[in-house]
């Protein structure tokens, strides 16, 4: 099959469109930059922190943000979290260090060991909690805390369309509709000194498009999967969603577009409910939270790794 725009061989088929390598790369980059501009993800006076794991999505995000920020003279840097997962994170961090070095990008690394006094591997010995629960709470907290320490005003993540569609459906199936109000291409309130707004430049790119982009750009990212991943609820939804997409091409796009239509209404409705509550700052660490003590501090207490 040939590219729809030239005579070269197609490497991509998406919703009836066939593109060759060059036209696919152009399509991908244009769509990401269009997302950044349409949703005002980055402003001239921002300092952008790109949360990176060394995987394809975050490497693509880092590469495209770096190009954007260099062009518009906006400050940016990369931040990685070392959870302390033996034989996994050490490898992805090595790939990330090499990538940042060859692209002259400043990379900061913050570890669970440094901030929460232990590695994830050791924490798992002390609790029955699932590793993804511990990792999710501590990683989210640490990204915000470290990005803030480094002066960032935006935190860019590699979330793609698949991630977002999965989260939306999971929240519906679990009856957590209010959580959907916290999704979208940009989340968090502007100007909150404790919580850095999060942006998702790959919001309208599928997981498959993201891997293809990384492959065609020659980013040296081997197949790596966290050893703790197991058979999670998200994996079930992911597989079902891929089956639906195969039978009904464009279904993921349809879900995300429908979601974005109702997102302003969700934000308004749940925002009003939230404003009735007293907004708290954690009495232990001072981070923004909706209770007296934030989830990370409570988890630290549970793990008995706090002072």
């Amino acid at each position, binding site marked *: 099959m040939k590219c729809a725009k030239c005579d070269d061989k*197609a490497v991509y088929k998406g919703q009836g469109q066939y593109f060759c390598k060059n036209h696919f790369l152009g399509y991908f980059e244009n769509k990401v930059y269009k997302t950044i501009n349409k949703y005002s993800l980055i402003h001239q006076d921002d300092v952008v922190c790109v949360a990176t794991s060394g*995987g394809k999505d975050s490497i693509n995000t880092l590469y495209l943000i770096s190009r954007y920020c260099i062009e518009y003279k906006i400050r940016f840097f990369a931040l990685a979290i070392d959870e302390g997962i033996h034989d996994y994170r050490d490898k992805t961090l090595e790939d990330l260090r090499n990538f940042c070095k060859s692209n002259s990008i400043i990379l900061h690394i913050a570890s669970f060991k440094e901030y929460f006094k232990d590695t994830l591997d050791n924490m798992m010995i002390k609790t029955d909690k699932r590793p993804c629960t511990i990792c999710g709470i501590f990683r989210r907290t640490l990204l915000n805390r470290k990005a803030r320490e480094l002066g960032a005003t935006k935190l860019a993540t590699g979330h793609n369309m698949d991630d977002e569609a999965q989260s939306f459906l999971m929240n519906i199936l679990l009856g957590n509709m209010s959580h959907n109000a916290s999704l979208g291409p940009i989340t968090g309130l502007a100007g909150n000194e404790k919580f850095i707004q999060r942006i998702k430049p790959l919001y309208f790119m599928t997981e498959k498009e993201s891997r293809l982009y990384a*492959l065609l750009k020659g980013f040296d990212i081997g197949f*790596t999967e966290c050893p703790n991943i197991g058979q999670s609820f998200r994996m079930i939804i992911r597989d079902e969603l891929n089956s639906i997409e*195969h039978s009904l091409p464009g279904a993921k796009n349809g879900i995300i577009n429908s979601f974005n239509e109702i997102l302003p209404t969700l934000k308004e409705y749940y925002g009003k409910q939230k404003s009735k509550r007293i907004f708290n700052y954690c009495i232990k660490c001072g981070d923004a939270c909706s209770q007296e003590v934030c989830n990370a501090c409570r988890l630290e207490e549970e793990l008995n790794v706090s002072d």
Partner: protein
Amino acid sequence: MKVFIEKTGKHLVLEGRRSAADILKDLSINPESIILVKNNEIALDDEFIEDKDELRILSVISGG
């Protein structure tokens, strides 16, 4: 043909010319979850794979 499945690390040898889509169907692999590389070049699933070819089935899901 030699087939490598990245997600499982499995190497297979299959015989008989057929489309990549048919191979994926036989292996119960959803085309949405993979990218095909035929003889070191990206391929679409309507391409035919010959006995002399080498096919790599790359997983689009990684990280965590």
